[in-house]
């Protein structure tokens, strides 16, 4: 594989950039693989990469219905953070933060990781107390957290509404300085390129139509490009998990919902951090191109449509304008939607299943992108060793049975409200 560097860039400039190697191949599916990963998104590509790198398993295929990186890894708002209170979420995410910091070097691909910090705004004394508690829990788990006063928030984001007569005055906020953003497409492409170079077959335009299960053991998958045998199969298809589960006669603690995001026209740099509104569901950051990247609530009813509805967008942007009044002056450039696995406690599932050799990675709710490296790393471990790693032991499928829920927000099973 050609190494990307400033020297290779200069060298290729002399031939008008016509001679770059392809980043990944377009192979025909083989008859059999050791492991098949279904879903060529961030998590699937990362899983294949760590299977090859950490476990030396390279006879692997990634099967993708559309094109790699076309689902939620290309539709998120690129936020990376580990500001969780519960141990399972905090330790898992913080492990991921380490992988994010090393990712560009590790993949030899610039993922433009930008640890610009995330600020969660508080709008009441009670919320300040809650944030203080969360911040202390984070620090006990070795995650950086700073409680900011109103004045300290104002210094960082003076464009927020600090006037006297507002419905939700800013009391302060909780900041995780090491959180940030990354270039989401580069994450998918970087993992794909490295996985491909280690022998993983990336098979696009290949839809799974069924599974072959014999005596409680997975033996292969049926696809639009023929049957493929496999010793192990991993599902990484957030948004479509319930569709594949139905083929397997499984019912999961997951509902599929639509989440929208949008960007404004580009403006000069003015927002240095990722900021979340504390009195509703809205968050905002500024991309390197200058666009304000925004998102918020789910559309609010089960959906497999990757297009959003305007009432929700209007509701979300109303919150945005309450936080940052200048947003009302900006034109909207693009809006889009992605479909989420909303799990019943708001936390993901990375586990084995009752079918031997079949592994499940799903239920990411709003937080799939930032989890990409840690999810791939732990899922690869779970598949390779046929047992969960301590980092994803809490993300078990049967926790809904045993009562060991990880209800970070304590919102219950109305997934469309959480």
């Amino acid at each position, binding site marked *: 594989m050609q190494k990307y560097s400033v020297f290779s860039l200069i060298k290729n400039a002399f031939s008008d950039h016509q001679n770059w190697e392809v980043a990944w191949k377009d192979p025909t599916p083989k008859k059999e693989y050791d492991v098949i990963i279904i879903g060529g998104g961030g998590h699937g590509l990362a899983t294949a990469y760590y299977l090859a790198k950490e476990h030396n398993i390279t006879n692997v295929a990634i099967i993708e219905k559309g094109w790699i990186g076309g689902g939620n890894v290309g539709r998120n708002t690129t936020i990376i953070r580990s500001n969780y209170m519960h141990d399972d979420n905090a330790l898992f995410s913080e492990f991921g933060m380490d992988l994010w910091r090393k990712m560009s070097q590790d993949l030899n691909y610039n993922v433009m990781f930008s640890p610009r910090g995330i600020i969660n705004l508080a709008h009441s004394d009670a919320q300040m107390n809650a944030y203080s508690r969360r911040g202390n829990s984070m620090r006990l788990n070795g995650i950086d957290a700073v409680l900011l006063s109103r004045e300290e928030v104002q210094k960082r984001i003076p464009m927020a509404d600090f006037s006297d007569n507002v419905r939700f005055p800013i009391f302060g906020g909780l900041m995780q300085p090491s959180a940030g953003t990354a270039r989401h497409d580069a994450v998918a492409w970087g993992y794909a390129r490295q996985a491909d170079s280690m022998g993983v077959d990336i098979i696009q335009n290949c839809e799974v139509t069924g599974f072959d299960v014999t005596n409680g053991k997975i033996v292969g998958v049926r696809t639009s490009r023929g049957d493929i045998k496999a010793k192990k199969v991993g599902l990484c298809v957030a948004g479509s998990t*319930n*569709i594949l589960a*139905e083929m397997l006669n499984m*019912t*999961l*603690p*997951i*509902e*599929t919902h639509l989440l929208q995001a949008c960007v404004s026209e580009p403006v000069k740099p003015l927002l240095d951090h990722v900021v979340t509104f504390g009195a509703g569901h809205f968050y905002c950051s500024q991309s390197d191109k200058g666009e304000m990247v925004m998102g918020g609530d789910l559309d*609010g*009813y*089960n*959906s*497999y*449509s990757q297009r959003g*509805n*305007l*009432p929700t967008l209007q509701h979300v942007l109303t919150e945005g304008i309450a936080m940052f009044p200048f947003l009302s002056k900006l034109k909207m450039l693009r809006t889009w939607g992605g479909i989420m696995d909303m799990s*019943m406690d708001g936390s993901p599932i990375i586990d084995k299943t009752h079918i031997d050799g079949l592994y499940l990675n799903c239920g990411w709710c709003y937080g799939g992108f930032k989890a990409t490296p840690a999810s791939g790393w732990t899922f690869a471990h779970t598949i390779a060793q046929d047992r969960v790693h301590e980092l994803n032991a809490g993300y078990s499928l049967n926790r*809904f*049975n045993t009562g060991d829920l990880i209800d970070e927000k304590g919102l219950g*099973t*109305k997934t*469309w409200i959480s």
Partner: protein
Amino acid sequence: MLYIFCPHCGSRSQNEFAYGGDATVKRPELNKEVSDQEWDNFVYLRKSPRGKHLELWHHISGCRQWIKVERDTSTHEIFKTYKADELTE
């Protein structure tokens, strides 16, 4: 914008409604021994199909009645709506 036909009020915009989730989920019968598994199935497990989905909506800014709506989850087409106690096909 979804337009939902409320069986009590007529066609109204989605802004008047609140979603109530899967209407096919059945609570285990009262006064009957319920296993942990049955209870978990009721509380947590959902089919969440792509295609026809029977769901509850609350006409919260209208007549405040709960209704059942049969809707396609990929096209958002609404086929039929029912009163809460009406039998569905």
